[in-house]
């Protein structure tokens, strides 16, 4: 008994030490709490590790903890979306031009948070309006405009972010002239897809690259009146880290423009639908990237 206690104590101390005291000399990579963000966090982390930079992962952070962490120096780099930073974090007035969005966000981040937006990863993730595929086929609707007449009596199910953001539903309804007879039900976004697929609502909000859209046989209506600005995903990194670890800049630049929208959807599908481990999907992606650039 005594012998067992003796071996347990150091083990517990070890766990506590690793949990509390973060290694002083490493780059802390963060991610938000959904598959795409975790996967991108892992890709960034592995890419930095390949460049010989010591990494500490802080994944699955809810809400805007990543941003708060970045501001307070607890998170050194994470992948953010320009539109989210523009509308939700900086609360700037809606701006339709993605290039202007990126410029505004970048200059304010440099000035206010001492952080830098590195090159975009190459895909865009934006809000989307979803219906069940079988409804889209049955009613012959393809675009948001096609669906506007039906939306009047449909039951809407939205994620909180889509309801609250200035570039969310209120602005969309104005743009397309949507009127609703039913109050939207607000839910956690991951549950929204399930609810729509199970017929508990008739249309919903979503994020355009989420793997669940294809997995649950949902259909993304085309934004025919171009309301949703294309928001790009890019790593945001604290300037102090770029100075301390010069290899970080090059490692992140290599990732620039390497993930197309279709590629991102495919990667999300591997994680969400095929349930492949995130670390493995990230490793495979970086290996493919390496071989592609070698053959070029």
């Amino acid at each position, binding site marked *: 008994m005594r012998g067992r206690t003796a071996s347990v104590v150091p083990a517990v101390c070890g766990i506590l030490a690793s949990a509390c005291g973060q290694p002083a000399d490493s780059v802390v990579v963060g991610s938000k709490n959904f598959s795409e963000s975790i996967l991108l966090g892992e890709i960034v982390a592995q890419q930095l590790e390949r460049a010989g930079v010591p990494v500490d992962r802080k994944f699955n952070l809810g809400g805007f903890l990543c941003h708060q962490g970045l501001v307070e120096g607890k998170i050194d780099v994470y992948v953010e979306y320009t539109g989210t930073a523009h509308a939700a974090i900086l609360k700037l007035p809606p701006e339709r031009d993605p290039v202007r969005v990126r410029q505004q966000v970048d200059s304010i981040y440099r000035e206010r948070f001492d952080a830098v937006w590195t090159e975009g990863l190459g895909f865009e993730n934006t809000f989307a309006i979803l219906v069940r595929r079988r409804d889209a086929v049955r009613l012959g609707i393809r675009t948001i405009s096609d669906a506007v007449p039906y939306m009047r009596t449909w039951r809407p*199910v939205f994620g909180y972010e889509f309801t609250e953001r200035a570039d969310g539903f209120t602005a969309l309804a104005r743009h397309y002239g949507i009127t609703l007879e039913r109050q939207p039900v607000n839910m956690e976004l*991951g549950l929204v897809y399930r609810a729509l697929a*199970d017929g508990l609502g008739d249309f919903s909000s979503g994020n355009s690259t989420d793997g669940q859209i294809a997995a649950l046989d949902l259909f993304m209506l085309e934004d025919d009146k171009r309301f949703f600005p294309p928001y790009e995903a890019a790593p945001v990194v604290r300037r102090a880290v770029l100075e301390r670890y010069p290899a970080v800049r090059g490692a992140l630049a290599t990732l620039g423009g390497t993930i197309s929208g279709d590629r991102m959807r495919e990667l999300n599908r591997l994680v969400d639908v095929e349930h492949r481990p995130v670390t493995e999907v990230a490793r495979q992606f970086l290996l493919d990237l390496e071989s592609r650039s070698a053959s070029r």
Partner: protein
Amino acid sequence: MNFFEYVAANRAEVLYNTVEHIGLVAASCGLAIAIGLPLGVLLTRRPGLSGPVIGFANVVQTIPSLALFGFLIPLPIIGGIGARTAIVALVLYGLLPLIRNTYTGISSVDPAVREAARGMGMTDWQLLWMVELRLAAPVILAGVRIAAVWGVGIGTIAAAIGAGGLGEFIFRGVAMVNNAVILAGAVPAALLALAADGGLHLVERALDWRRRTAA
């Protein structure tokens, strides 16, 4: 806009969601008591079941709420979206303290007291009602207190499934990166939890006092 300004500007909504929250917690606590208390008594009569049943209640506690909602959405009658699903989840989370405290409270009644009651010719029901439940009341009530305070706290997740309540402000605040809105849900929820705990504590004291004066 700071917290006080936000609450002042939206007081009708804050009040409405607070009432909604109380409704969710009251309904789920009531159901948890209605299920957990008889189940706890049953376990004292069939001790062999106590391992599996308490084990099950323990496991339920470890299921993250979003995962639980995910399981519940496709189910008929108890599932779907809205208040009903939220209450089912809250009842499941509230069962553990009630089952366990009822079981422990009754099990720890002195066997000599039970023998004496039998010797006086009490039936099973009389023994349960007049002796065991009375002696176990403080422990059972402590379980109700835990369930109520937990219920107020985890009741905020009801907003994740479209059931409203004070969690609505928390989810909205998180989506907007606005602490004032988060606090508009969190502060009333904390006050409710304190009120529930304090109120049940008074009930406990009143029962205790009655028992003492009766003795």
